[in-house]
């Protein structure tokens, strides 16, 4: 490691190579603070060429490396390796080109999601995917996680808005993956690969034209069932809103305690529905929506951006807000088909009662993407374990209903053990073929996403015990 550090120092300016134990601690976890590891060394490159050289050095020394953007990930994807290099993109923050004629921008990976929108908002454009963390999360991290946001119901995820990526492959080559190129859609495979197929060093994103009109409606229902029915009815009517978000009573209570969002009192559920598009169309959809939500006991319509922000305020602060009503909590991220929402929410209720663990529900109802907040008191013996059980059982519910173990936060280290519940061994082995094509030595973010990947070149099949190559010290398993 010392020789590697010396080599890194010869590549990068002195202050771009961190080995001081105190400073290294800054990088020991991402947004999922439950997993921690101190990296052997942290580098902060300025250019793609530097990233490539660092990766080549890692290859020379057979040392694993992990990319890190802003470290807001919630699945431990950017968790460092104690025996490896953490490559942080925070110095690569230039917006290289804004090309409104072609509706795109070329940016470095460390640029924050919101900075792109801010750069073009005045001219009537924006970058559509909007994770709640958009003020801080990096576009490189978004590409790696294929991030979504409240508006991906209508506009899709990161993968639908990325036109090209320059990447440093795990062997240290600079390669451009472009949607325009004929051939395999490697860009599509790279987006969402959580840093296991290389490091994005330059990203071309698509910019969207701001809609003519935005109408935001808050509908308060007595029960979560009524709210759920309204969601189905909206979709059933052929309306595709920009967003449909839902919060249950406990989540509302938390938001109220934290930011006094003044949602209607006594609501069992609130829906936030945002319609956007051409004015004439939004007007008609709004009339339909009012009809559909006739069972709501209160309906608020935001007349201007300030009122819209007031409606969103409770929803946007909900995650942080639960801290007000519970000393500790787990944020779960699972997906179910929209039509299963009522039965899954009822089952979550039962789980909650059975284990004496409160669960607050705040979620992207339009996509069936649940974010149950599993609340517990970490001072109470056994409570953390029970919360874990409930949290895991919720994922099983999602799988049972044909859903997914993650809708936006990714698998990371946190959920790799759940992958075999969702996918067969053959599915996982096949995904490894992609890994082996990009990263035959398994150096790029090893240990993430997949539980026990096989060695590249090894035929798929049932395996028991330690692989003989590993046992004999001839190969490493990643």
């Amino acid at each position, binding site marked *: 490691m010392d020789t590697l550090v010396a080599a890194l120092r010869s590549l990068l300016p002195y202050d771009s190579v961190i080995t001081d134990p105190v400073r290294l601690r800054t990088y020991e976890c991402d947004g999922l603070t439950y997993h921690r590891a101190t990296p052997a060394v942290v580098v902060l490159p300025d250019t793609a060429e530097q990233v490539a050289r660092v990766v080549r050095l890692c290859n020379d020394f057979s040392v694993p490396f992990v990319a890190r953007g802003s470290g807001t990930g919630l699945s431990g994807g950017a968790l460092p390796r104690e025996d490896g290099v953490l490559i942080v993109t925070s110095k690569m923050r230039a917006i290289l080109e804004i090309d409104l004629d072609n509706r795109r921008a070329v940016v470095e990976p460390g640029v924050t999601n919101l900075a792109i929108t801010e750069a073009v908002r005045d001219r009537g454009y924006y970058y559509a995917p909007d994770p709640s963390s958009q003020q801080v999360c990096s576009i490189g991290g978004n590409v790696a996680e294929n991030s979504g946001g409240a508006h991906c119901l209508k506009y899709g995820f990161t993968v639908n808005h990325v036109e090209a990526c320059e990447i440093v492959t795990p062997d240290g080559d600079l390669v451009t993956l472009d949607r325009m190129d004929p*051939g395999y859609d490697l860009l599509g495979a790279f987006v969402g690969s959580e840093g296991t197929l290389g490091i994005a060093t330059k990203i071309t994103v698509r910019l969207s034209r701001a809609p003519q009109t935005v109408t935001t409606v808050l509908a308060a229902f007595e029960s979560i069932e009524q709210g759920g029915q309204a969601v189905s009815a909206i979709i059933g009517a052929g309306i595709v809103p920009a967003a449909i978000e839902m919060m249950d009573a406990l989540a509302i209570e938390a938001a109220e305690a934290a930011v006094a969002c003044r949602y209607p009192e006594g609501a069992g559920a609130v829906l936030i529905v945002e319609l956007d598009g051409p004015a004439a169309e939004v007007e*008609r*959809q709004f009339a339909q929506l009012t009809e559909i939500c006739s069972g709501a006991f209160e309906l608020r319509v935001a007349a201007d951006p300030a009122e819209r922000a007031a409606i969103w305020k409770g929803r946007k602060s909900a995650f942080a807000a639960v801290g007000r009503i519970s000393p500790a909590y787990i944020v779960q991220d699972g997906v179910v088909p929209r039509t299963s929402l009522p039965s899954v929410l009822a089952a979550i209720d039962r789980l909650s009662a059975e284990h004496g663990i409160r669960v607050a529900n705040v979620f992207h109802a339009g996509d069936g993407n649940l974010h149950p907040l599993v609340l517990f008191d970490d001072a109470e013996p056994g409570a953390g374990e029970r919360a874990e059980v409930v949290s895991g059982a919720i994922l099983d519910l999602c799988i049972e209903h044909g859903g997914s173990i993650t809708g936006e936060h990714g*698998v990371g280290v946190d959920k790799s053990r759940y992958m075999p519940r969702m996918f067969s061994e053959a599915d996982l082995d096949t995904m490894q073929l992609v890994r082996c094509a990009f990263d035959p030595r398994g150096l790029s973010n090893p240990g993430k996403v997949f539980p026990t990947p096989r060695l590249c070149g090894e035929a798929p099949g049932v395996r028991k015990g330690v692989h003989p190559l590993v046992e004999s010290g001839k190969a490493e398993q990643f």
Partner: protein
Amino acid sequence: MLGATVREAGADDAVSGVKPRWVALPETVEEVAAVLRACAERDLAVVPAGGGTKLHWAPPPERCDVLLDMCCMNEILEHAAGDLVVRAQAGVTMDALATALADKGQELALDVPFAEGTTVGGTLATATAGPRAFRYGTARDLLIGITVVLPDGTIARSGGKVVKNVAGYDLGKLFTGSYGTLGVIAEATFRLHPLPADRRWITAELDRDELPPVAAALAASQAEPSAAEVDWPDPAGPLTLAVLVEGTAAESRAEALRGLVGKGALTGEPPPWWGLISNDDVLVEVRFPATGTRAVLDAVAGTGLSLRGSALSGRVLLESWGAIGEPALAAAVSAVRERVEGAGGRVSVLAAPYASIDRWGQVSGLPLMRRVKEQFDPGRRMSPGRFVGGI
């Protein structure tokens, strides 16, 4: 033993002139797997086929022992209307799918010409896009889950049946547009859209020079067109632009867009050429950033090819009216490529009966693509030679 029906191939089963020995007709995913396993054991090369409407696209296979005809895998497995999701076997025709979905007021928002016979699997494997890609994206954007069978018979799945899902690698993206060279697409799950409440077209004749500014204005318009197609049968003459508006207020939005075009007729039906091609014996796809429109028009003008395609999403198809010889086509393709590649665009020859044409032009990620092919198909048995770089 295979379960699947296998018959001897006839002259009609040839793939771009390469005649297979057998045709296999599996009915289930397991049967596809059994056929591929058997082929692997005997080192037989396999070309999958859907409706056979595009089997002459891409270069001929280096070898082809078995044509894997997916026509018997024609079941719609699940249409969850409330979730706007459908799961279908690869051999389902796009027509049958559209009819079933329309019953519930929904659609898969891909425009597939030659709809007769065209299958889900073939549509994915070739993955070019029609008019409405501007609004809805292409096949890759609407596919949310896939079941594939690898050349060794492994059955693998990725994605699922929920739209929002980021667990694992997206094999669907890799197989979309892979021309049958990685394995067989057995089942696919798509996200759907409600059928638009209303549709209007604005059709206008423009001079070549008028198009680029009009297209830019349309793309930036908040009246949100779903598509804008150009038809330019004779590059010596004017072109026709047709703009589609879909949704609840289509009529008033179409009026607004007609204002941008400056002229044109408003109709409830598309022009007869909308989303079709007349002949795909020779077919060249040009993709380019929006500002490349003028360069593309200029480049096509002298080639003797005609042009049809999107004025908004930067994807047009060039056809030849009459017979075009090999040298003339090669010259036309390189002339267009020269203008377009510099501007970040790409030219692919999808179909041409000539061996010496450079079909794909510049491909940035080719070495990585080769590695992907080696991993998935180390024996080079799946449609060998049919794709970029001879993959």
